[in-house]
């Protein structure tokens, strides 16, 4: 629960990531990204209930972090290498520029050096002359209104679309629970090999972490770079 309180301070995955790196007094490099991966995932595994609509955004970043990390830790993990992880590093640097600019902007606004336009004199003493739109009838009015209504569709769908995308993690967890109910032990390698794509790898990984947290499973690794055994508790 401690993480949940903390997460409320963050507006998105980049701010969280930046904060983690700065806490460790690190520069933005691939190595430091790799170092803060666990902390990032820890934050993430507690976020699902709170902000389901934002989980998708955090998952994108988690994916990249884990890919960076996994190359170092698990050499046997074969993932399509179409994603140069330098991107995340670069992207975070760009984000930081604007993050800092926003802080400067805030203090500038707080100086209250506001400028003002002129008060519209017509508003003070409005001289109203009836000027209806040309060639305009009831049907036009109806059509304009219908267009407005149609344009509302995507706005209503916004939150629900994001939620639909984040359901996956929950489903993965229940799937793993079912699988483990029939087997007592399984290998991480086998689990990963079943995955269709890197997103599923990440979701699987996150689901495992969540199950460890819930003390439903425990994981064991004999030596560095070896396969991980997953056991039901």
């Amino acid at each position, binding site marked *: 629960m401690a993480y949940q309180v903390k997460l409320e301070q963050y507006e998105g995955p980049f701010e969280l990531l930046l904060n983690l790196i700065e806490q460790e007094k690190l520069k933005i490099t691939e190595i430091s990204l790799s170092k803060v991966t666990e902390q990032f995932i820890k934050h993430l595994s507690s976020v699902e209930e709170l902000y389901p609509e934002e989980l998708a955004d955090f998952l994108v970043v988690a994916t990249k972090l884990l890919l960076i990390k996994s190359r170092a830790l698990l050499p046997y993990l074969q993932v399509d290498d179409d994603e140069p992880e330098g991107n995340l590093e670069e992207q975070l640097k760009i984000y930081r520029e604007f993050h800092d600019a926003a802080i400067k902007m805030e203090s500038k606004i707080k100086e209250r050096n506001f400028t*003002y336009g002129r*008060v519209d004199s017509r508003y003070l003493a409005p001289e109203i002359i*009836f000027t209806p739109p040309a060639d305009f*009838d009831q049907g036009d009015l109806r059509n304009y*209104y219908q267009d407005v209504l149609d344009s509302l569709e995507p706005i209503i769908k916004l939150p629900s679309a994001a939620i639909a995308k984040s359901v996956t993690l929950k489903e993965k967890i229940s799937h793993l629970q079912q699988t483990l109910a029939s087997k007592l032990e399984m290998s991480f390698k086998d689990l990963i090999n079943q995955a269709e794509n890197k997103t599923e790898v990440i979701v699987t990984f996150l689901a495992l972490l969540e199950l460890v947290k819930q003390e439903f499973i425990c994981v064991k690794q004999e030596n560095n770079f070896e396969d991980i055994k997953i056991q039901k508790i």
Partner: protein
Amino acid sequence: MKLKQQLESVLFVCSKFLKKSKLKEILNCKEEELKAALAELSKEYETRESGLALMQDGDRVQMITSPQCSEIVRQYIKDERTGELTRPSLETLAIISYRGPITKADIEMIRGVNCSLILRNLMIRGLVAERQDKKKGVPVYQVTFEFMQHLGLKELKELPDFEKLNRELKLGEVLLAQNKNKEDFFQDLEKVEEKKHE
């Protein structure tokens, strides 16, 4: 900073006559200082061939456009008033027709953009009128009788598909979903607008 500079900015913002006694108070200066600053500003407008001028009448001062520019100013105002309405304006007019009386906040939630200027424009053209809603304690907007007449309507209910479109569920959902997002800054802006017009 020079008094003349401050004087100019206040006269500009005000848009109407200001009494010199009031100006002295605002600028916190003496009679002679104000007089000198007014003379300086007035002379500047003349010598630099400005489009602006000061009109002084006894105790009152106002910033106006210079008399030489009256033709172009008149033309501009006429164009602005009779020019074609933009699509956002017509959409707003449609919302007010089907959903009026409606608050500015609700129109903005539906359209997703700030509507201050559009509403002002629709009012100047006599298509929309503002009145105070006693229950809500805020202004609400509705189309004018003249506009209804122009469309050949006795009642708004006669508009095509009125029943169906007036009670469109999507509207409720949008208003509900967005209501919680209103923030202080926005409300602050409104307060300033109101004050400016007092």
